[in-house]
């Protein structure tokens, strides 16, 4: 990159393809990076390897029949996708969810947030080079969350648990004691995990000051979720536009200042701790009652449109539904938080090196199922 008068070494930029099959692009994501030596001049993202036409399929499924498809959007946070979609339909059709179901939904959503952030943090530190060790520790803990989900709905990854008007089935009696045991175990584990990594000099050197996203750029690009909060945008839908019963719980919103990879990593770990707090509060005094509102399986929503959004682990996940008084939505658009978060990638990586490209990309935490739909 230096073109001084004395050294006329002719260099030219070359294009490297970080292909759809790569050990570290999370999912089938392709980038064509223009490099000058090790320094990145520009990247061009290429999507579409996982495009399945889910929005088109929505127009042929009933409202309830679409729920399994929402599982496969961000397949690492299925409960959140289900929840977002159900909230959108309930807004559209004016359905009220019973209290017990609301509590259960909050518990599931927060457990899912912990599981999703485990993968995000683990994969990020793995990209930094800590050869799977923190990744596997977090996966060990994630297994406990998956065991809890298995207890409730029999599935480990794509749950199909939420229904329009509530949840599909009640929690078994052994669920709450197991959940309490998990919450009591997880908080000291997170503290220990942080202790290993928070002041690790190599991690600080790799992640601090790398891939900075300024505050104004984050708002401009429509970034949401931990990425935006790490840049100082104090916006969390659970506090700003509370859905379900989040306005009854006490929790903090961790924000960062610098907007670099290290802040994003810290924000996610802190969010895991806050999720444990919310679960602890939601676990107490779950009222008895039905777990599902009395709605027919085939819902016929009144004519109109609605937008329901939630704070998914990756950002603001929203569903825009247009109904024309039939059993299937006329249009279902999914606001993909991962795709919109990728808008900022190009400006975040310019000037950094190849090694940083992988880290910055990993710190945004995307899932291609949601990007491509």
């Amino acid at each position, binding site marked *: 990159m230096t073109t001084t008068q004395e050294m006329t070494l002719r260099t030219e930029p070359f294009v490297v393809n970080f292909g759809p099959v790569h050990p570290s692009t999370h999912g089938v994501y392709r980038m064509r990076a223009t490099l000058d030596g090790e320094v990145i001049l520009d990247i061009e993202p290429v*999507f*579409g390897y996982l*495009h399945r*036409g889910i*929005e*088109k399929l929505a127009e042929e499924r009933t409202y309830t029949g679409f729920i399994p498809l929402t599982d496969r959007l961000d397949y690492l946070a299925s409960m959140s996708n289900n929840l977002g979609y159900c909230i959108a339909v309930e807004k559209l059709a004016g359905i009220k969810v019973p209290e017990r179901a609301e509590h259960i939904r909050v518990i599931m959503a927060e457990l899912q947030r912990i599981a999703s952030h485990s993968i995000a943090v683990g994969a990020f530190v793995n990209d930094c080079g800590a050869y799977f060790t923190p990744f596997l520790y977090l996966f060990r803990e994630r297994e406990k969350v998956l065991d809890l989900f298995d207890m409730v709905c029999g599935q480990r990854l794509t749950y199909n648990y939420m229904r329009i008007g509530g949840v599909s089935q009640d929690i078994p009696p052994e669920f709450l004691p197991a959940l309490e045991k998990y919450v009591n175990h997880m908080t000291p584990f997170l503290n220990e995990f942080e202790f290993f990594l928070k002041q690790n000099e190599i991690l600080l050197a790799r992640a601090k000051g790398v891939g900075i996203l300024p505050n104004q*750029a984050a*708002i*401009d*690009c*429509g*970034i949401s979720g931990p990425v935006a909060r790490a840049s100082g*945008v104090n*916006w969390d839908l659970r506090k*700003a*536009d*509370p859905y379900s019963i989040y306005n009854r719980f006490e929790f903090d919103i961790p924000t960062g200042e610098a907007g670099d990879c290290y802040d994003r990593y810290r924000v996610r770990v802190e969010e895991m701790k806050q999720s444990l707090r919310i679960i602890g509060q939601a676990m107490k005094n779950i009222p008895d009652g039905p777990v599902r509102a009395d709605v027919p399986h085939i819902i016929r929503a009144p004519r109109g449109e609605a*937008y329901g*959004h939630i704070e998914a682990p990756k950002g*603001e996940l*929203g569903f*825009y539904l*247009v109904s024309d008084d039939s059993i299937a939505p*006329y*249009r279902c*658009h999914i*606001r993909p938080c991962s*795709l*919109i978060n*990728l*808008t*900022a990638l190009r400006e975040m990586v310019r000037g950094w090196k190849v090694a940083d490209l992988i880290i910055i990309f990993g710190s945004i935490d995307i899932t291609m199922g949601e990007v*491509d739909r």
Partner: protein
Amino acid sequence: MTVALPAGEIAGKLETKFPGCFEEGGKDNLLVKADSLLDVAAFLKDQPDLKFDYLNYVTAVDYYAYFEIVYQLTSLEHNRSIVFRTRAYGRDNPTMPSVTGLWRGADFQEREIFDLFGVAFTGHPNLKRIFLWEGFQGHPLRKDWNG
């Protein structure tokens, strides 16, 4: 709680600032004409008491006679949100001005609308197909697609 502003409040302000920007009967759901889209959008973004600086989403719906492009904006400062829309008539080559100059987040979303609906956005920095490959014929999310 994010207050979804009712259309009437904003419609009055917009009508005084940009007379004739609304379509016929468009005041109730903020249906803006395509040529005044950029002016209206810039006004909504920059006016200090409105300050809608965050674009939630840009999407399109196919209503056979026209494509309705829907925008939702949120003001982080005032914690308010608003939905406004515009229509692109015709099915052969519908066009619409692009708002990427105001909100960069619209970049990929407008490419998606172009890819799946065929609505071209003038002023977009890189308008090409995003999910389907170059050379794909047709636009799948249109209602008359039977590929």
